[in-house]
């Protein structure tokens, strides 16, 4: 502990990563205990960067209430659990967000039979949500600012929210839009439900680490940037070996043929190569877990590269 997280991680031989146990597309384990999801892939990316091996990671399933203590106490080295970056969390929970891995926003899911097409029509609605998240607060802000009465029914666990919503206890189910897509899949008839277009909050989700360990912070931060940069550079899991030899100086720096960037942050120089080799680039991760071809079918939207109409943008490696 005293030596700094990076050294600790290297010593014990794996990254301990806090994830969501039951959010399809972000963090979920199947029957065999295989984990998948964007957040999970990010953990693997960090493992790849450090060890050159995406499997050197252990997952701690965390619920909303425990996640911050788990990180603060050192139970996990890294929190990658669809957590919204807010100022108060930076300032008063002792966290440092390394960046944004997914631009999300809070939305509403309703039954199609309600005949509602906009969140602004939800005046007087009963809304189900999970307690202990920013969603409860956003919800209150949204309805108050639009002067609409509402009633919130807040459950401890996702499963309960969904069961109550399905039973008809509330008109709307609110959480981050990505979560809504994931939860909708679990309903008996997903097609009977729709997600309203309004996004009522900014929910930049990102990995977080403990405050006060800059070295570790840098490693995790640049792992995220490497994923985005790779997409920009057109480097994929499949083609990186072949492009490794290309003449593009940017790629050369990326794969570690040129420069000493890896050792600068306490890793090997081929760290970024390992990341892509291990988990693919950001786009690949997105597509594999939540993209249009998956059951969730979420469009890239804001999460597209800045060059393609989105706002994902990473500082260059140089």
């Amino acid at each position, binding site marked *: *502990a*005293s030596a700094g997280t990076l050294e*600790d991680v290297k*010593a*014990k031989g794996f990254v301990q990563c806090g994830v969501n*146990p*039951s959010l*399809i597309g972000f963090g979920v*384990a*199947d*029957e*065999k*205990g295989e984990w998948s999801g964007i957040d999970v892939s990010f953990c693997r990316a960090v493992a790849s960067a450090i060890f050159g091996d995406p499997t050197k990671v*252990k*997952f*701690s*399933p*965390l*619920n909303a*209430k*425990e996640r911050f*203590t*788990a990180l*603060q*106490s*050192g*139970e996990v080295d890294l929190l990658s659990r669809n957590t919204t970056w807010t100022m108060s969390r930076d300032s008063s929970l002792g966290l440092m967000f390394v960046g944004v891995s997914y631009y999300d926003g809070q939305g509403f899911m309703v039954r199609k039979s309600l005949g509602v097409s906009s969140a602004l029509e939800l005046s007087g609605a009963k809304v189900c949500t999970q307690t202990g998240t920013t969603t409860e607060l956003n919800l209150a802000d949204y309805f108050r600012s639009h002067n609409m009465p509402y009633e919130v029914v807040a459950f*401890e*666990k*996702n*499963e*309960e929210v*969904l*069961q109550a919503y*399905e039973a008809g206890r509330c008109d709307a189910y609110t959480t981050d839009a990505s979560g809504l897509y994931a939860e909708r*899949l*679990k*309903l*008996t008839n997903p097609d009977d439900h729709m997600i309203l277009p309004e996004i009522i909050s900014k929910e930049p989700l990102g990995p977080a680490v403990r405050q006060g360990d800059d070295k570790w912070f840098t490693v995790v931060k640049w792992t995220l940037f490497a994923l985005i940069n790779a997409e920009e550079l057109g480097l994929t899991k499949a083609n990186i070996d072949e492009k490794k030899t290309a003449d593009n100086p940017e790629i050369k720096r990326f794969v570690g043929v040129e420069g000493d960037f890896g050792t600068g942050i306490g890793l090997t120089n081929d760290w970024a190569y390992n990341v892509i080799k291990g988990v693919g680039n950001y786009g690949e991760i997105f597509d594999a877990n939540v993209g249009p071809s998956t*059951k969730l079918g979420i469009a890239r939207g804001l999460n597209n590269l800045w060059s393609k109409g989105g706002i994902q943008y990473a500082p260059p490696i140089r």
Partner: protein
Amino acid sequence: MSTMASTAYVRSEMVGPQKAPPSMIGPIGWARKNLFSSPINSVLSIVAALFIVWCLIPVIRFTLIDAVWTGDDRAACAQASGACWAYVKAYLPQFIYGRYPIDQRWRVDIVFLMLAVALVPMLIPRAPFKRLNALFLLTVYPLASFVLLTGGHIGLRGRFLPDDIVGPGPVRFALEFALVSFVIILLVGLGARLLGLRASQSGSAIGIVLGALAVVFMVVGADFGLVPVETANWGGLLVTLVVAVTGMVASLPLGVILALGRRSKMPVVRIASVTFIEVCRGVPLITVLFMASVMLPLFLPEGVTFDKLLRALIGVALFQAAYMAEVIRGGLQSISRGQYEGAMAIGLSYPQRMRLIILPQALRVVIPGIVGSFISLFKDTTLVAIIGLFDLLGQIQASANDAKWASPVTGITGYIFAAMVFWAFCFSMSRYAAFTERRLDRSRRG
């Protein structure tokens, strides 16, 4: 008095026993006595019978007649108006093992099997080798289960010896252990000398403890070639049983200590025990669990962390210990003063009196109470679902929302299944408690 002369009477022939009127015996007599003994009772009987029918019909319809028994996904149950047993069938392995890797589940099976094999003769009053058996259950079994379930091979690295003498690893740990043991034995020896006890005696006691510790470390540190399985992947009945059994095994000695503490003549010890017991009994388990899951990490120095399951276990064990202490105290109180005095008069010391005379008797008396409190504990394990552990109930709840099987009846089927499992466990335990209670009564009378 002469008026009475006429009443003199001597029976000439005896009246033999006659058969009771039909209204007294057989099914009719039974029904008359138990169901129709008065007009009100007759009405009640009819109402009760109707009530039973009214309750049972929907239950039977839902669980049996309208139930779906086969199918591969939710399509089978989507339209069902009865239980979706197909879903339970599909998920049964998960309900038992959680996400424990499939190719490693034999390890869990062994643990279950060992428990059954060791526990059954323990529960049968007449079965021999009770002491050995208990020893196995309280020492070998937990250790073996720990290694089997987690994979063992925990990284013992040692703490304080400088790296340049010997690097972190089992060797450093062993060295440090030996060093510490040596110091402890030395200190104890000195202390014993000072107290005028025979040094060899206290030394050997400490030696046994340290030796046992060494064995424990050797076993949990050794590499048996088992794949490690994180507790995060444990789930279902496995977690339920781990929480319940560990809570029980850990709370017993703790409970004994607390109970003795509560009866101690030393005010400080007594007050501390009473405070602990009453605080634990005064608050809901779930706040204790919250505390274990949210607050315990705050209590620990930076970098020291506990596994989440372990934290829940600590919370449960401490909580249970308080209840156990009260049960055991009841047992201690039932031991007559004469037993204490008899033991004192033959020259036994306090620890000897407790170990040889009082506790064996007290614990026997409280077996029903212990089983009773084990039932509560077993039911309470479901609360760990609230702090995000996947016990049987948590696992069922999580799976009911699995996209593959979600249907209107899936959730309720899961709950019914969980209810049946818990009921079977708890009911048999309560029967067992009643059985031992009767047996104790008899042996006390006889």
